[in-house]
């Protein structure tokens, strides 16, 4: 089977690591009671990771539009192909929707993002507590949906590797050509 290109593999795993990191930070930081320097630091890191995901997602999408992924295993039934494509599309949408909802949430809360403490990113909307409350809920549910879909994505990959043994997972793993 044909593997993904190195560019595709790098995009995939870089974004995967950042998403897991941002998700973990998000869970930890929102669980810290009160107001501590560590909490604020985690919030800052979480936002920087989110913005990085958004930038990488944009580059990845532009790159993906010009580069077709390798074909799926010929043995895969049609419903699985449909499910795989649907899931991949949803993950692409969420790679944008999750960081964007977080970005607008922090803007509505009146806290702009200063990327790595160096660059103040654009403020598109004014402080709006009512909107902030809505975006907070939206960000949470988009994140949780994404976590569930990533879980499904991982389970499907493992099923291909362990049950079907059809080389689907290896296409996205770094290594020598198959």
């Amino acid at each position, binding site marked *: 089977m044909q593997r993904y290109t190195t560019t595709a593999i790098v995009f995939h795993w870089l974004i995967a690591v950042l998403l897991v990191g941002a998700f973990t930070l998000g869970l930890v930081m929102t669980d810290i009671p*009160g*107001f*501590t*320097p560590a909490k*604020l*630091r985690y919030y*800052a890191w979480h936002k920087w990771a989110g913005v990085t995901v958004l930038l990488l997602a944009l580059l990845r999408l532009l790159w993906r539009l010009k580069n077709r992924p390798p074909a799926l295993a010929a043995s895969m039934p049609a419903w699985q192909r449909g499910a795989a494509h649907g899931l991949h599309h949803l993950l692409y949408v969420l790679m944008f929707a999750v960081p964007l909802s977080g970005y607008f949430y922090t803007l509505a*809360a*009146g*806290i*702009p*993002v*200063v990327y790595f*403490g*160096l660059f*103040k990113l654009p403020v598109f909307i004014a*402080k709006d*507590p009512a909107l*902030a409350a809505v975006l907070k809920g939206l960000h949470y549910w988009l994140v949780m949906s994404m976590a569930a879909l990533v879980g499904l994505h991982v389970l499907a990959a493992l099923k291909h590797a362990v049950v079907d043994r059809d080389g689907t997972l290896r296409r996205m793993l770094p290594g020598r050509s198959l």
Partner: protein
Amino acid sequence: MTTLRTTLAAVLAGTVLLASAAPLKTDAAHSSVSALFKQMDVPVESKFTRFTAQIDYDTAHPDKATARVDIDTASLDIGSPEYNKEIAKKTWFDAARFPKASFVSTAIRPAGAGKLNVAGKLTIKGRTQDVSFPLSVKPEAGKQVFEGQLPIKRLAFNIGEGEWQDTGMVADEVVIKFRVVAGQ
């Protein structure tokens, strides 16, 4: 008739004069006191939602002006109700012990058209410092608008104790920005 008109005019003028010597009434809806600070280099503007300002100002005698502002320290809105509760606690404003921060002017001097130099005592969390800052004043819709900025060091007032003394996390410099609209 002429005498009556003159008398009436004199009485009216007298009333206006008397009124202008009295303290101005603050228009709370159009006045604001905010604190600008940097948290991990992120600029944050927070507002005190409860304060009172008493300004005694007569355009004819600006040097006789006095000003007093009292701020409810538990009323700083930094963007989330949860955090607002935290900064009222002991580490920050200790609003239970020091419910008010105050500014009381000691001298107000004219400094050119529409400008005043204000000196006074600023008390936050039980600590008092002498401060001075330029103030602009301009008439707007029959009222006076006083605007100014006063940069202070939060640690001089013990705002942010213990681990919060780290100025890399929250910068020492805080700019108090205010706009007080007051009239008869």
